[in-house]
């Protein structure tokens, strides 16, 4: 095992990492008084699988040319991304307390010029996947073996730019590209299906030529297995990860209001108790 290898070797370790990402995100948001806790919690298990078990990166050399590329296209989930980066060693955990403060390296949305480990600036939706397609084409042209992973929010799949990229990735046969859709079924104000329905999302992705798997986005073992399976040559991979916004906290789960509500101190304590209780 070299320093580029992901740190976790068991599903238990990844589950622990996901718990730490959730608690870190929650405290980061509560401390800053702003953030998007609902979407952080829906994506935490996916981040844990990627940073714990998949991504070959080098915290001591964030620009290592052969690193796997990861893009958090749903940039509003910055608190969970920063927590995952801190836990992987890209920044001191203590720095999470500066989130969104004056001149912090950890802004409200990810900025590659400020935060080690961030590949491209995200926040406006529909940006990450086209950039990921460019990375995957670049790797192919270089004959490099590193892979590109992009997480998009499901509401973001309403952006036309994503479908431009989905079409072109299949056209180019980018089997070194993986798209993970955080399918929490809620966008900022309402459900995706009542706003501009995405279903049948898997059928749409398949129709565009992607190898598509639908799974429980909180089942880290299954997600980890799927990501480690060999790719279908010439076919980009999509994973529709069915998730719950606010996952793991009874008073947050599935509520659009927790898209960017900030928890009180009591709610933080209760949330941590529920999260750790479920784990122990």
């Amino acid at each position, binding site marked *: 095992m070299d320093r580029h290898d992901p740190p976790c070797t068991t599903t238990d370790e990844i589950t622990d990492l996901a718990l730490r990402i959730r608690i870190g995100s929650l405290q980061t948001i509560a401390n800053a008084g702003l953030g998007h806790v609902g979407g952080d919690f829906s994506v935490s298990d996916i981040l844990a699988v990627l940073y714990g078990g998949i991504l070959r990166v080098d915290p001591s050399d964030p620009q290592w*040319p052969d690193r796997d*590329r990861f893009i958090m296209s749903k940039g509003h989930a910055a608190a969970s991304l920063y927590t995952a980066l801190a836990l992987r060693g890209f920044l001191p955990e203590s720095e999470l307390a500066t989130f969104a403060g004056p001149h912090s390296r950890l802004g409200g949305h990810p*900025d*590659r*010029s400020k935060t080690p480990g961030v*590949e*491209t*600036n*995200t*926040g*406006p939706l*529909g*940006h990450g*996947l*086209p*950039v*990921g*397609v*460019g*990375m*995957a*084409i*670049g*790797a192919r*042209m*270089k004959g*490099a073996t590193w892979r*590109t992973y992009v997480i998009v929010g499901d509401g973001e799949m309403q952006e*036309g*730019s994503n479908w*431009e*990229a989905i*079409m*072109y990735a299949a056209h180019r046969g980018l089997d070194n590209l993986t798209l993970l859709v955080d399918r929490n079924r809620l966008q900022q104000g309402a459900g995706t299906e009542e706003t501009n329905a995405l279903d049948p999302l898997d059928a749409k992705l398949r129709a565009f030529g992607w190898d598509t798997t639908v799974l429980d986005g909180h089942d880290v073992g299954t997600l980890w297995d799927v990501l480690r399976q060999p790719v279908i040559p010439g076919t980009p991979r999509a994973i529709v990860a069915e998730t719950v916004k606010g996952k793991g906290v009874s008073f947050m789960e599935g509520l659009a209001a927790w898209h960017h509500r900030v928890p009180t101190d009591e709610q933080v304590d209760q949330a941590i108790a529920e999260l750790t209780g479920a784990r122990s």
Partner: protein
Amino acid sequence: MSGASTAAGYDCRVAFADTLIALARADDRIVAVCNDSVGSSNLGGFREEFPERLINVGIAEQNMVGVAAGLANAGFIPFVSAASPFLTGRAMEQIKADIVYSGANVKLCGQSPGVSYGELGPTHHSIEDLAWMRALDNLPIVVPADPEQTRAAVLWAAAFDGPVFMRIGRHRVRSVSDGRDPAWTPGRAEVLLEGDDITIVAVGTMVEVALAAAEHLGRAGVHARVLNMASIHPLDRDAIIESARITGGIVTVEEAVPRGGLGGAVAELLAVEHPTRMRLLGTHAFAPTGNVDFLFEHFSLTPEGVARAAQDLMAAT
């Protein structure tokens, strides 16, 4: 490419494409990214020689710019080449977030800018691009006036580590560089004509119009000073302030909306540093139907029109 320096009526797109091919031969990081624009960008030769290094995403400009950012991340130097109205207008947020804010080493090459699509109308005109690009933080903006400047700008852009926007003109233009080497220097204006009565600051296709206007003015006994401001950002502040001190009035001329364009840039500077009476000439509004020559007449972007504006300004000061 060598014949370009003396051939009147040379197409800057040819200089662009030839220079890009020469760069690609020497550096395998150079790639071209386009939106079905192989023909209009004159990239046929590039495709023939480097088929795997021409990434044609089809008619999808947002993806085109995002893909270029990803290629830069992978270590390539992408030249995005597409009609300027669609590159800048359709993909504006990608240019802002993925390229400029992210600091991606991508060269944005707006082909056929201004009103060069003539009769095709305002949907195909790119008169807003300079104002839009100028609003982005510290993005170098180059508007070469002739093939030699185009070549120099492309060579510089490839060597510069960071995003660049350049316009590649479609009109045939005559050389205004007059054998200068280098034909263009980033951040520097060229004083093409010394004069002390009035200054005409021009970019791109309008540089030769400005020179012709100066001839008109000369026949009326007016000594016009002519500046080629091919670098709109960074702006050659010293050259502008010095010209304002020497001649008083300044006329700016561009194939673009002056609000936020060259005219805006010069006016912003002078308002703060050396208040000066000005006339801002350009394609002020959505154009009526007509070919390019008609449109230049319509917007007074002719030697006579520019000379008239200069004389109006002198009479007013």
